[in-house]
C-alpha cells in the first residue's frame, strides 16, 4: 500500500508498504530516518518514541497505515540542520549519552515533558520527571545523568521563556 504522511514537517510518500509494517519500520527502512530505535519492538523500552500528531507514542506499535495523513515527529526533526535543540545540548553536557541507543526516544519524551511544563509556566519536579520517563529504558547510565539533563534543559528553557 501507499503511505502518505508528514514527517518532521515534510510531506512524505512511500509505496509498497506491507500492511503489517510498523511506523517504526517505515521510518527506519523506507524513509531513511533510522534515528528512532528498534530495541524491543513491543512497546517496553521507549527507544522508538516519536510524536504522532504531537503525542509521544511508540512507533513500533503504530501500524504504518495508522499514520496516513498524520504528522510524525522524530528525533531527526527536533532541531534544524546544523543546530541542536536545548534538550539535545543538555543531554550532551550532562553526560546523559553513553551508548546512545535510548537517547532518541528519551529526547522526544523529554521534549514533550519540558514543553508541557513550560507551557504551564513551571519546571517539572523530580518525581514528575521520573514518572514521565518511566517508559524509556536505559541500560548504560543508571538514569542519574538523564535526570540531570532534563533538569538542565528545563532550567534553560524556563530561562528562555522569561
Amino acid at each position, binding site marked *: 500500500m501507499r503511505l502518505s504522511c508528514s514527517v518532521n514537517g515534510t510531506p512524505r510518500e512511500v509505496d509498497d508498504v506491507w*500492511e*503489517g509494517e510498523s511506523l517504526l519500520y517505515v521510518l527506519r527502512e523506507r524513509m531513511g530516518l533510522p534515528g528512532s530505535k528498534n530495541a524491543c519492538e513491543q512497546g517496553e523500552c521507549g527507544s522508538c518514541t516519536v510524536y504522532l500528531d504531537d503525542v509521544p507514542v*511508540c512507533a513500533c*506499535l503504530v501500524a504504518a497505515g495508522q499514520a496516513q495523513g498524520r504528522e510524525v515527529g522524530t528525533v531527526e526533526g527536533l532541531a534544524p540542520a546544523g543546530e541542536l535543540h536545548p534538550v539535545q545540548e543538555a543531554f550532551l553536557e550532562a553526560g546523559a549519552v553513553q551508548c546512545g541507543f535510548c537517547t532518541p526516544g528519551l529526547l522526544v519524551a523529554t521534549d514533550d515533558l519540558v514543553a508541557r511544563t513550560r507551557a504551564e509556566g513551571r519546571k517539572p519536579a523530580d518525581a514528575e520527571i521520573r514518572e514521565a520517563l*518511566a517508559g524509556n529504558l536505559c541500560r548504560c547510565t543508571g538514569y542519574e545523568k538523564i535526570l540531570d539533563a532534563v533538569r538542565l534543559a528545563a532550567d534553560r528553557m524556563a530561562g528562555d521563556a522569561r
Partner: protein
Amino acid sequence: MDFLQPATWAEALEAKAAAREAVPIAGGTDVMVAVNFGRLRPTTLIDLTRVPELQEWGLDDGAVRLGAGVPYARVITELGGRLPGLAMAARTIGSPQIRNRGTVGGNLATASPAGDAHPALLAAGAEVEVASVRGTRRIPVSEFYRGVKRSALADDELIAAVRIRPPAGPQQYSKIGTRNAMVIAVAAFGLALHPDRRAVGTGIGSAAPTPRRAPEAEEFLAGELDGLWESRGELPAATAGRFGELVAAAAAPIDDVRGTAAYRVHALSVMARRTLTWAWADYRKGDPTCA
C-alpha cells in the same frame, strides 16, 4: 493483508461483518506486538482510530459512556473525578507512551486476565456496549470475560464503549508488579463502595483464567457495612481482614513466570484489606468528590 480505515462507525461495522476474521486495531499495544513478532498475521486489519465516535466520552442516561478508542492518558486527565477507579488503574498501565495509545476498548477486546482496566470495570459494575450491523447490545462486564483471552464478543461485533455509573462512593485500585513502572500485573484488585445501593464492587486481575469478581467478599462486606453506611463509623480491623481473605478465596491463580499462585492469593488478601481501609477512610471523611 488488507488494511481498512473506516471513517464512520457504520463503515467499521460493515467492514467487520464483511470480514469476520478481521482484527480491529486501535492503540496497537497488543496487536502490533503480535504482528511484529510474527505471532499474528491477520488477513485484514481494521483501523479504528479514524472513527470519531470511538474517540469521545460523554454523559448518557446518568452514566459515563466512554468511547472504546479513548486512550488511557485521557481517562487519567479528563475522567479522574468521574471514574476514579479506572483512572487509578490507567495510571499503572505501561508507560506514558502506552497510555497515549492504549484504550479500554482494546483491553476488553484482548480480554487478557492481566488487563489492568478489568478489575476497575468489574468493581464499578461497568457495561460493555458492543455493536454489529445486527444492532447494539450491552453486556455487564462481569459476563464479558469468557476464558483466557476470550470474550462474549461475536465475530461480527466491535466494542463501541463502556458505560460506567459515576461513583457514589470511594473507589480504589491496587496492582502488584515486580518493578515500579512498566510492568504487567502479578495480581490486581479493584474496589468500589456503592453507598447509594448499599453495595460493594470488587474486581480481581491476573489471578484466574479471566478477570472476575469476588461475590462472597462483596456480600460479606455489604452485610458488615449495614448500619455503618449511615454512621460512617470505624471499620473493625477484623472485617477488613476477613474481606481480604474472601477476596483471596475467590481467586484461582496459577504459577507462572511473573509469580506463584500462592503469592497471588496472599497479595490479593493484602491488597483487598488495604484498599478497603483506604476507601473506608475516604468515605468517613465524606470526601465530596467520592460521596
